[in-house]
């Protein structure tokens, strides 16, 4: 359904674009080249400005609507500090309004460049305002997609259709019988009754075959036994556990498409026993700017008490996000991430699976003791280049004996190494 809304959006955008270009011809401001302006805007301004929203600096669309003195604007953009230093009343007022935070000076921009940028901003702002007015209704409908009610209704209709078909079949059968009885053809039913007697006889005959009975019983016992065995062993093993999280955080996008390093967010993995779920200030490093309109990102804002319009934090409104824990070792076992990630140099995927392809994370490994021990028995210790192992008798002995220096051989499967 999302693709439909996407197509709709694309379509409306292109319509708007054409409308925009048409409008351009009549524009009074269209002194600069908006296309050139776009490149310049993206290169120089986007760090601090957005057209429709306040970022570090003010939202430029409304700002340029109200400020029409282009000479002043050009000077301001090229070197606002000079203007303030010269005590230009307008400049000083703006400076004060923004808590005396200086805007970066752009002396490298020529007057033409600035005009191009202004033209681009005007165009974009106009487009956005138009977009808000015209296709609003259609878009919202498309975005919301089919509601649950519709789905239920559809299912209901299908079930109803089946019932109708069944009833119709019955009716047809009854009508046929009526027709037949009218013709006086009832003898066939006796023949029908004789058939099950035959079938039971076959069954009885088979039941007398002791070998067969034994074989069937054996199969049954084995199947039931192995099912019980597997079920019991996997009690409290939550491989594949994929709870619904409060925020639909897509690992496939962040770790997969964007190739963000796992430890950019899970900072503890290198240093601590906990890999740790990132705190929201880590999210805000990017999402202060990126995808600010997404309702999922707004959940972050709400949790922080952050208002994207004013860019202010209100700690009284903040509340923690309650993630559902997926990988959960019991308290009786001690596990340390840094031992495995930093010292052993394991990839996160070794235990957590292909997180970079998971839309929603699920538990990949069983996290049972058997699973831990198996890996400890199979994995060689990465002792090269780590002086810790240099003076260790055990390592030298194992190498001398021609054995593998596995974690287990170094004492990695002794009870007390994890259970304390």
């Amino acid at each position, binding site marked *: 359904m999302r693709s439909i809304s996407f197509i709709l959006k694309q379509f409306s955008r292109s319509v708007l674009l054409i409308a925009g270009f048409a409008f351009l011809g009549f524009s009074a401001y269209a002194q600069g080249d908006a296309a050139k302006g776009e490149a310049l805007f993206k290169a120089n301004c986007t760090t601090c400005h957005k057209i429709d929203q306040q970022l570090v600096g003010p939202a430029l669309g409304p700002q340029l609507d109200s400020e029409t003195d282009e000479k002043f604007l050009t000077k301001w953009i090229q070197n606002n500090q000079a203007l303030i230093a010269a005590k230009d009343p307008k400049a000083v007022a703006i400076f004060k309004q923004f808590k005396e935070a200086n805007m970066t000076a752009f002396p490298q921009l020529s007057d033409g460049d600035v005009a191009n940028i202004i033209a681009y901003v005007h165009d974009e702002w106009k487009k956005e305002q138009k977009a808000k007015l015209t296709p609003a209704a259609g878009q919202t409908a498309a975005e919301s997609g089919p509601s649950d009610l519709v789905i239920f209704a559809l299912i209901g209709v299908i079930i109803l259709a089946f019932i109708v078909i069944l009833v119709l079949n019955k009716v047809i059968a009854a009508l046929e019988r009526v027709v037949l009885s009218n013709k006086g053809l009832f003898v066939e039913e006796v023949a029908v009754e004789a058939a099950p007697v035959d079938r039971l006889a076959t069954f009885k005959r088979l039941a007398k075959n002791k070998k067969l009975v034994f074989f069937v019983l054996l199969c049954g016992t084995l199947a039931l036994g192995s099912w019980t065995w597997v079920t019991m062993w996997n009690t409290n093993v939550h491989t594949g556990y994929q709870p619904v999280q409060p925020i639909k955080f897509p690992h496939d996008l962040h770790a997969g498409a964007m190739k963000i390093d796992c430890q950019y967010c899970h900072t*503890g993995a290198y240093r601590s026993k906990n890999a740790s779920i990132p705190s929201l200030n880590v999210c805000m490093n990017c999402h202060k700017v990126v995808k600010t309109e997404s309702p999922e990102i707004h959940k972050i804002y709400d949790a922080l008490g952050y208002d994207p319009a004013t860019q202010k934090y209100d700690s009284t409104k903040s509340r923690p996000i309650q993630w559902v824990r997926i990988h959960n070792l019991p308290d009786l076992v001690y596990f340390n991430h840094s031992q495995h990630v*930093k010292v052993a140099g394991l990839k996160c995927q070794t235990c957590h699976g292909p997180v970079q392809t998971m839309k929603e994370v699920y538990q990949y490994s069983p996290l049972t003791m058997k699973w831990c021990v198996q890996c400890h028995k199979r994995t060689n210790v990465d002792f090269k280049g780590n002086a810790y192992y240099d003076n260790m008798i*055990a390592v030298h*002995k194992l190498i001398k004996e021609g054995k593998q220096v596995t974690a287990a051989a170094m004492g990695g499967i002794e009870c*007390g190494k994890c*259970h*304390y």
Partner: protein
Amino acid sequence: MDSNKKYWKGLEELNKTPEFVEKNKHEFAEPIPIEDVLSGDGLAAGKSPRRDFLKALGFGVGAVTLAACQKVPVHKSLPYLIKPEEITPGVANYYASTYEGSAILVKTREGRPIKVEGNPNDILSKGGLSAQAQASVLDLYDVNRLKSPSKNQSDCAWSVADSYVKDELAAIKAGGKKIGIISSTTNSPSTLAVIADFITQYPTAKHINYDAVSYTGIIQANQNSFGKSVLPHYNFDKADVIVSFGADFLGTWISPTEFIRQYVQNRNSKSLENKKMSRHIQFETGMSVTGTNADVRIPIKPSEEGVALVTLYNAISGTTLPGTKKLANSNADKALMLVAKELMAAKGKALVVAGSNDVATQVLVNAINSLLGSYGTTIDLDNPSYQYKGNDAEFVEFVSQMKRGEVDAVFFLNANPVYDYFVSKDVVDGLKKVRLKVTFSNYSDETAALCNVLAPNHNYLESWGDDNAIEGFYTVQQPTINPVYDTRQAEQSLMVWSDNPVKEYYTYVRNNWDKTLLAIGGLSGQSGWETLLQTGFVKAAPKPAGTYTFDRDLNAVAQTILDHSNQLAQGKLELQIYQTVAMRDGKRANNPWLQELPDPVSKVTWDNYVCMSPSDMKKWGYFDGSVVKVDANGYSVTLSVVSQPGQAQGTVSVAVGYGRTLSGPVGNGVGKNAFPFHSLRNGTFQTSATAELTATGEVSILAQTQTHHSIEGRNSIIKETTFKEYLKNPSSGSDKAEGHKMYSLWDEYEHPTYNWVMAIDLNACTGCGACVVACSAENNVPVVGKDEVRRRREMHWIRIDRYYSFDDKGDGGITREHEIAKLEDLDNVRVVYQPMLCQHCDHAPCETVCPVLATVHSSEGLNHMAYNRCVGTRYCANNCPYKVRRFNWFNYWNDARFDNYLQNEHTQLVLNPDVVTRFRGVMEKCSMCIQRIQAGKLKAKIEKRSMKDGDVKVACQQTCPANAIVFGDANDPNSEVSKALKSERTYYVLEELDTKPGIGYQVKVRNISEIDV
């Protein structure tokens, strides 16, 4: 193996009472009612036991199936909203701070303090920490702390309390009546400055230091003798001969942690290897920790103390003070003559101390020390101690002023006189006439109950501040957690009420340091302050300690002392009032770790009691647990009697610090209050009195850990020798020379990576018990309470066994079997302490009997215990020759029956997150702090380097002020522990069982020379 030594843990074992013999035969403390079940009212009782059995079985299976059907709970994970920069979840942060003047490090996890550790650079104790300091972290999470200010017994906002107090103070200022600020000794420069500012604002105010356990006697004596009204700084490390008259300087006297460190320096392995050992002679009434450590201990009555000092002075000076009489105690008299000779021989390296708070007694001690040339060497008057500054007379005067109605306002800072003043009624009456009564107490304590404003102070772990324990040594205190409750620092309150121009106490402390204190450490500015917060203290170069000569007239002094002695001697019995190591003055009575810490000597927990000599008890017809009424100074309490070998005959001892009524649910009603037994004499509180005992006929059994673990007559547990023997043959006592050939049934274990072992020096261990509390804090060891201790179910992973032996009859401190029968010798017993914990045997008997392999051996020489594998057969505990395994009879951390101790949402925050809490039905024991070993190894791996000796310090080792415990890798021949174990004194407990323990003990050495009695 020497079979003629005999050590014993309690009189029951020594006397082989029928109850003891009977009890000892059994595996369990209480009989298991198998017989009852199998016969009589048990299975046969019902009409159809088979049907009942099937019903129960059916129900049981059904219930278990149902219980197993529940869904796995959903676990939530709540990350920080905005993570503080310095916090990494899962990694501990350490902050330098101060506890009662010692520099400490506070270990915090995820922003909450979970352990207090000594600062290794601390001037006083060099990283050692007392049991009280270790336990102090638990107070932070005490749910019984005051949670908000209150006015007239109802909770209010700080603003309401502030405006009320300020209005009242304004009115009082106009009225011109007195204002009192009563505090226990305050030595924090910033706090003193705030109080001074307060006094400037309200000129009628006066600050009075009032200590429940006071040292005014010493301070006043120094004023009288040398014109310096200070508590001197003692240097026990510089003394070759130490003579103490009732001063428990290794347990409770002034600065015990520091003194232990100093004292042990002349008695530990290093000193012995240099053929040097100090000599320590103790004259005292009750058996104190110091007395048990002394080379020679002479029991004397409180009334004999003065006479003994006069005798000693006469012997040293060669003069005779007027009124001198011969000491009735011939043993003590003989000893004193010899002691005088020894002291004179060690002139300049001798030290005489007395525990008395009597001015005259202390003046005489000063005179003796002056004759011995102690000033400038073992006693330093120029770098004095500020740990106690209390002035008894000032407070007594203040109480009478209150009673006369001359006082309009009083502020109590860390003081609780309604509980600990000797005439509590005077304080109660006086407070009725005071208009404004404010307490800064953390708890709604006895004094708070009578105050109209409660302005609860922060816990010290939530506060800014500083301390100045000794001259030139300034420590800084920084908060390690946001205030848990709606409390406010007392200094902040005083600043608000006195309209201090500085608004925040932090700024005040900062200014104070910037102005004067930082410069002492050669620091300045912001960077200096930041350095200070990391190092924790500054230290000025000590002033040269001057020599002082005593030249006052002693005639009057001697007269006063002897008069007092005569007075005391008139009663039937003499009473000595003392402090216990765990409870001290009772301010931390609500701390369950301290309540459950067994007293080093009596091994009693959760109570105070009347210590009596066994021969006196026989005479009076008492036995352990008899409840008696003690009458003295017009006050009486009923307490159980404990037979205390070594107690001077004709005396009883009772500890203060108990009998709190409003300390909180843990401390309320534990024991009886002994403070009212104090009396005032010549301006100071006296700790002795004449007493009368009356039997009540009742019996109340104390929760004693003493005879829980019988040694079954095995003689290779404790080994000791004398210094003389040691000099001749360093391996004397350790039986090294005997060289038995050992045959083993078991294969040797290889230790290819590490071999973690421990060495414990019995000559250094003073038995103070700090390790027990440190271990509890580190390893989440539960508190079980009095009832459970009575059932022998205490959970401590490390215990300190106390063994008595008889004083020698000329044969090297060894008691012969045949000598034991003579009960009169019980006055002159010797004591050896032995910290006992899992020995991590290579051939561990516990491992071979575990049916589920829950306890197994590791390649690093440790005996692992997998709790989740244990099914609770207790076979291991039964087979352990050291009796160090502990069984969880209850789910202590999650059982309403243990509510008061550790089971509540706040105290659980003190748990060490790296160590699991054990469930009911599981065996546990010392793990050699395996979490620290693993963390140490991981740190080395991350830093890509080999492990260094000292990378891992176990909790008991870290806190030990005596450095009696050394831990390390035996595979490293240069490690401290390898060196220690190579010592000739090393022996292994129950070596003959071939358990190959991982812990080696070093023989106790006593410096007994031929001049002993």
